[in-house]
């Protein structure tokens, strides 16, 4: 009995501790949500002037903000597509074939993961400046794809480690050619890993600050817009948009996760 009570008090302390940590993690989100309903119109938008839904409507009139959001989305979608194609081919190729320099590729893939982002940012900036790639959407897509590729590859690799090679052989034995086998067997089996990698690339791209900061030229992404507005105070419509993005991401993740779980069951 005494022991049980002791155990329970451990449980309570643990629960309190975990709640405090979650409070720490979520408090800024609460601030963002509350400020998105703040009726204040004067900079730096800190004092509470009452509750309003206006900012959720007004944000659709803020063209600069919408433009930066549109840029962010275009960059994220292009990055996701490119990183997923290059990454999927590479992950499968490196799994299937032995070749010289494989360990070098492996080592290079860890550079963008381990190195501080600022180093990647300035090194791409110097390259783009040197070979006169105009800085803007295009350079941002190239930069984001660069840091996303490794994550896509690692995600698919985790899936490949449980991959049964014999189903490919079976497909070829039954007369399918390489291309057919790749599209009809390899890709569907790896789909959950690919989806997970693509989702990661997407979220890394929309959230990126540091690499974008150095490679954007005049093009604004949403995080850079936030950075620019921090000096004068982030206005409530930016908060409102952030809340909408959070909800959007949550929906996206729930949808893909349930897809991934289904895929796992089928395997």
């Amino acid at each position: 009995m005494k022991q049980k009570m002791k155990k329970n008090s451990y449980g309570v302390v643990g629960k309190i501790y975990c709640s405090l940590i979650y409070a720490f993690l979520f408090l800024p989100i609460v601030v963002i949500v509350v400020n998105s309903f703040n009726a204040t119109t004067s900079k730096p938008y800190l004092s509470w002037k009452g509750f309003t839904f206006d900012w959720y409507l007004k944000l659709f009139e803020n063209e600069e903000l919408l433009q930066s959001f549109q840029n962010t989305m275009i960059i994220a979608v292009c990055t996701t597509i490119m990183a997923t194609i290059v990454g999927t081919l590479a992950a499968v190729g490196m799994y299937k074939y032995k070749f010289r320099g494989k360990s070098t590729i492996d080592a290079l893939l860890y550079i963008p993961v381990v190195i501080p982002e600022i180093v990647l940012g300035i090194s791409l900036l110097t390259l783009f400046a040197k070979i006169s790639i105009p800085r803007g959407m295009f350079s941002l897509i190239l930069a984001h794809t660069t840091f996303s590729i490794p994550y896509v590859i690692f995600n698919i690799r985790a899936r490949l480690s449980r991959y049964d090679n014999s189903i490919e052989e079976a497909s070829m034995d039954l007369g399918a050619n390489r291309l057919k086998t790749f599209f009809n067997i390899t890709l569907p089996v790896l789909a959950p890993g690919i989806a997970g990698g693509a989702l990661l690339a997407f979220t890394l791209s929309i959230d990126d600050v540091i690499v974008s900061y150095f490679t954007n030229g005049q093009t604004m992404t949403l995080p850079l817009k936030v950075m620019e507005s921090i000096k004068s105070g982030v206005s409530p419509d930016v908060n409102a948009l952030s809340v909408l993005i959070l909800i959007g991401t949550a929906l996206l993740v729930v949808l893909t996760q349930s897809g991934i779980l289904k895929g796992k069951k089928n395997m």
Partner: protein
Amino acid sequence: MNKRKLKSTVIPSSIMIGPVVLWLAFFIVIPLLYVFIMSFCSIDEYYNVVFKFTFTNYKGLLNSNYLYVYAQSLVIAFITTAACILLAYPFSFLIARTKSKKKTLLYMLVIIPFWTNSLIRIYGWRTFLGTNGWLNNLLQATHITNHAIEFLYNKGTTIFGMVYCLFPFMVLPLYTAIEKLDGSLLEASSDLGGRKAQTFIHVVLPLTASGIFSGSIMVFIPTLGYFFVSNILGGGNSDVIGNLIQRQFQSGNNWPLGAALSIVLIIITLLLVKLYQKCGGDIENLGV
């Protein structure tokens, strides 16, 4: 090489591996080499980079202001990492070994805040902690203090912001390591008379050390570069190496000096990764 091998291996493997090789060569290897070369370049009076070999940039790194920032940056990174370990270890232990059905949810709740842009969340802390912020209003409304307290703009808040940004990178590897712990080992240790503390030091800690090591690398290294955290919360007296680099790469500044600073950051990173591998860490655990 015979034709068959060409068709069966060489062509498909080059189609699959080729793109990533070109991509890495062009956007990782060449830029980094170029930064290395640039760190030995000079600038003309308009701050243009000229290819004239010099050691000036590296000599410039020994400037006492810079030395101070390197030291400060390492101290900030060290405290951030230590704080993350101390906060995240018990937390990860509790959520990884809970028998509750909500385990996946508890894990997801660590990641969800990261779906909102990190800048705006850091700004959220500034709103909360500022002299006009929520915390000060609360303290004054409850008469705990009668004047506003300045919580912001010091090394402490920079470290706080770093811990906030990087906390999940400590939780994720710890969670993985702790989840793998075999419960029967813990029972065996306590059956054999080991007290809780003994079990922890001799059984749990060594078995979860890999998580602590990879978490530490994933927290320590980014801390050296996160210039925006000290920009927003630190107010100029808590620079990290990233701030020095950022300033040199703003338009019209000394890029070669910035390149040399980046080389320093790369060397520190490589040394840390080597140390990590010496401790038995596997580089493969550093992804996500």
